[in-house]
């Protein structure tokens, strides 16, 4: 059941991205989609609108990059409550540190180990 919900929520979030790419003006690149998803995910999360999606969809809401935005926002909100203004600067990044470091390190490793295929 949780797998089905992950499929539906995750698929739905991707579908929205596809509609944006195909129906808006030409030139919306994957880069724009990534920037848009992380930002909108963080904003939705700040207004408490993303957590319900995570409750329903599990990984279906955390795997899309909007889920990364959600972690950033929730981390900041949590640490502000604990540490005050310093938390605004440390919270988001500590909550997502694993993912970001993984992205940079694995990304670099993969780039060093592999060559582009034809």
């Amino acid at each position, binding site marked *: 059941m949780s*797998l089905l919900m992950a*499929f539906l929520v*995750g*698929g*739905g979030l*991707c*579908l929205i*991205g*596809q509609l*944006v*790419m*195909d129906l808006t003006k030409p030139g919306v690149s*994957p880069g724009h*989609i*990534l*920037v848009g998803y*992380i*930002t909108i995910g*963080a*904003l939705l999360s*700040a207004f408490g609108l993303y957590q319900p999606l995570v409750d329903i*969809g599990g*990984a279906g809401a*955390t*795997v*899309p*990059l*909007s889920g*990364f*935005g959600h972690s*950033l*926002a929730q981390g*900041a*909100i949590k*640490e*502000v*409550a604990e540490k*005050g*203004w310093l*938390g*605004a*600067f440390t*919270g*988001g990044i500590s909550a*997502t540190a*694993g*993912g*970001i470091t*993984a*992205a*940079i390190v*694995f*990304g*670099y490793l*993969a*780039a*060093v*180990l*592999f060559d*582009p295929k034809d």
Partner: protein
Amino acid sequence: MGKNPEELLKTAEQEEYHHLVNRMKPKPPLAQNCMWAFVVGGLICVVGQIIMEYFISLGYSRQDAVSLESTSMIFLGALFTGLGIYDNLGAKAGAGSVVPITGFANAIVAPAMEFKREGYIFGVGAKMFSIAGPTLLFGFTASVLIGLAKLIMLYL
């Protein structure tokens, strides 16, 4: 303001041409693209869900399991990009392979591996952030602003 007749004529001509091109231009196969995006995006999330539930079953807290799931998905995205598979998936799945965090990993590895011949510092090292950089910038900035907004609300 104050456009001369020649410029106005040119603009009108360009506009008319734009209509002609729009009429002739083939449209993307929307239904097919959406179907692919939904199915592939959904399946990638199912893999994430399986990984997350596996870490929960090992006794990790839900929050740590989510972190581990993100990390694992990034690893897989980087690996499949390196193996030359992820771009073929992306050609079909469009947003279905961009929106998941594996797409973020792809956006890091793809430019990085192509700039190896320009060196490991300013080639790979710089190019890997060509898309990831703006993404992290907007994410971090949003997170700091949200934190500060929360701070203001706490004092009100």
